[in-house]
């Protein structure tokens, strides 16, 4: 809180804000830092998306067209690292920064200087990571999973990759600490844990996951670093090490990471669907417990990523059944979202459209996940395009659509202006159509046996690859509407009042739009909380 006081002393007297570059570089304001996170995430989304376009371009036809296999593998590796650590996670942290203090009636995050540090680590991490394209040996090409011994063959980029991953991890851990400390200590009087909005709940649970697993990734890559440079043999079989142990450690991080990427989307959808159904969320407490159950289960399913590596039958059964168990709390959530809409007065503005698409398409990704959980079936699917289709259904119409729903929901609050709803609907429909054209055929390719991470393929896979590539180009072009819409909104949007959406509830809607630079400088009154905290 000392940081809050310092910030307040210097700036709050007349609610003026610093100007020029100092406002951003030295910022301790949660809204400014949230904006920087979101802009950074958007930039990374387009860089990572650019890599995806190049991948789809290469795969448009069989044979090598544009890239040698090394470059192709670099593109897939960097696409994953940029999208996961550069686009999705910073987007969630940006939304958390903007919304958690507003939704809890808090004046700012609990640790504003730490918040500044968490953000400013990221541009350095990604400059380092992206500059690997220009060093001898090229960018990392061993996959985002960084399995040894393959990753140890990376050239000059290796220490840059490891340091970048460490920086990203440090940024995430610091951000998570800030979120937990804010939620546990800065709630306005009267906002008990079970009166918190679902977005705050899902972020709290996400932050616990981050603190538990990001250090595990850091530990794993530290061991890779010492194996490479200091003669240790943690994962080198020739020296008595065990490369499979890296996979266990990595996936102990990697599976909860999937939930780190998706849980805040559950929170957003739980905010959006009640608003546009004009009904309270069905089963609020069940949603909280379901989120916590999913988070707990995410720690005991990691080896389903490694069935073909070889493990005892009992372990296979355990990981298969524990993975399937996740369908239960996830099913609770899907049921509750559907029940919220039941007999509601629905309207279909862009946030609701993205939330509905999330509901249908994320469920498709969940179902293919259940198929992959079946050990004997997984032996068939492993390392095919079926897996690529599965996790892209979870991460694109799941996570990315969740982020879009959140941005379209709160953008009027942030800017004080309503955006062009028609353009938003165009963005939605083009995205929703092309995302299916892009990823659904990849199920067929995988089931037909096309391996993932290859720049060339047998000619019988050509047709569906072309369909998929056309979907990819369409999806990529459709995303250009998003920055255009935001620019138009800022420049010429129609001013709105406190509440952008008729059915919206929550403390954030009790503030003016846009909220003042320092909001909730006095905690909300009981009456405001009662009005705002209806679920």
């Amino acid at each position: 809180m000392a940081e809050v006081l310092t910030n307040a002393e210097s700036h709050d007297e007349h609610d003026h804000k610093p100007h020029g570059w100092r406002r951003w570089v030295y910022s301790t304001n949660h809204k400014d830092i949230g904006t920087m996170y979101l802009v950074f995430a958007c930039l990374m989304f387009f860089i990572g998306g650019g890599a995806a376009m190049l991948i789809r371009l290469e795969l448009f036809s069989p044979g090598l067209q544009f890239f040698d296999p090394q470059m192709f593998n670099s593109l897939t590796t960097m696409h994953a690292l940029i999208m996961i650590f550069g686009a999705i996670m910073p987007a969630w942290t940006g939304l958390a920064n903007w919304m958690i203090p507003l939704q809890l009636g808090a004046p700012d995050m609990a640790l504003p200087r730490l918040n500044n540090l968490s953000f400013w680590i990221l541009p350095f991490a990604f400059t380092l990571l992206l500059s690997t394209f220009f060093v001898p040996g090229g960018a990392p090409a061993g996959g985002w999973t960084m399995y040894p011994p393959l990753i140890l063959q990376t050239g000059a980029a290796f220490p840059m990759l490891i340091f970048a991953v460490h920086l990203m991890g440090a940024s995430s851990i610091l951000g998570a600490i800030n979120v937990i400390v804010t939620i546990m200590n800065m709630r306005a009087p009267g906002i008990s844990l079970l009166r918190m909005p679902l977005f705050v709940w899902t972020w709290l649970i996400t932050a616990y996951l981050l603190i538990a697993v990001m250090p595990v990734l850091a530990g794993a890559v530290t061991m890779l670093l010492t194996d490479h440079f200091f003669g240790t043999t943690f994962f080198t079989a020739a020296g008595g090490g065990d490369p499979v142990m890296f996979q266990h450690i990595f996936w102990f991080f990697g599976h909860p990471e999937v939930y780190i990427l998706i849980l805040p989307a559950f929170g957003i959808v739980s905010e959006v669907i009640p608003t546009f159904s004009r009904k309270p969320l069905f089963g609020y407490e069940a949603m909280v417990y379901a989120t916590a159950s999913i988070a707990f289960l995410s720690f005991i399913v990691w080896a389903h990523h490694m069935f073909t590596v070889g493990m005892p039958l009992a372990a296979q059964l355990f990981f298969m059944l524990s993975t399937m168990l996740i369908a239960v709390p996830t099913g609770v959530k899907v049921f509750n979202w559907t029940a919220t809409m039941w007999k509601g007065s629905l309207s279909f503005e862009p946030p609701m459209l993205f939330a509905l698409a999330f509901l249908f398409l994320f469920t498709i990704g969940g179902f293919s996940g259940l198929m992959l959980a079946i050990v004997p079936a997984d032996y068939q699917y492993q390392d095919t395009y079926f897996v690529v289709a599965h996790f892209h259904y979870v991460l694109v119409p799941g996570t990315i659509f969740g982020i879009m729903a959140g941005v379209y929901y709160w953008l009027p609050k942030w800017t004080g202006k309503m955006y062009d709803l028609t353009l938003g609907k165009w963005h939605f429909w083009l995205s929703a159509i092309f995302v299916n054209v892009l990823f659904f055929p990849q199920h067929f390719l995988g089931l037909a046996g096309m391996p993932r991470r290859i720049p060339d393929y047998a000619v019988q896979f050509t047709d569906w690859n072309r369909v998929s590539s056309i979907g990819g180009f369409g999806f990529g072009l459709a995303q250009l509407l998003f920055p255009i819409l935001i620019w138009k909104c800022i420049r010429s949007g129609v001013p709105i009042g406190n509440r952008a959406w008729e059915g919206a509830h929550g403390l954030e809607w009790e503030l003016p739009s846009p909220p003042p630079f320092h909001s909730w400088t006095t905690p909300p009154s009981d009456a405001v909380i009662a009005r705002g905290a209806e679920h």
Partner: protein
Amino acid sequence: MAAGLEASPEQRRRVRRSALLWALIAAAFYVAFIVMAVVRGTK
């Protein structure tokens, strides 16, 4: 200074204490997995 931005000493203490606690937990996970790998490697 706006009243809401003032934090009581007790709240400051709680913020500092919980931030340190979670930082320590993160550090413990980092060290524990490396120690686990070392122990396993020396068996």
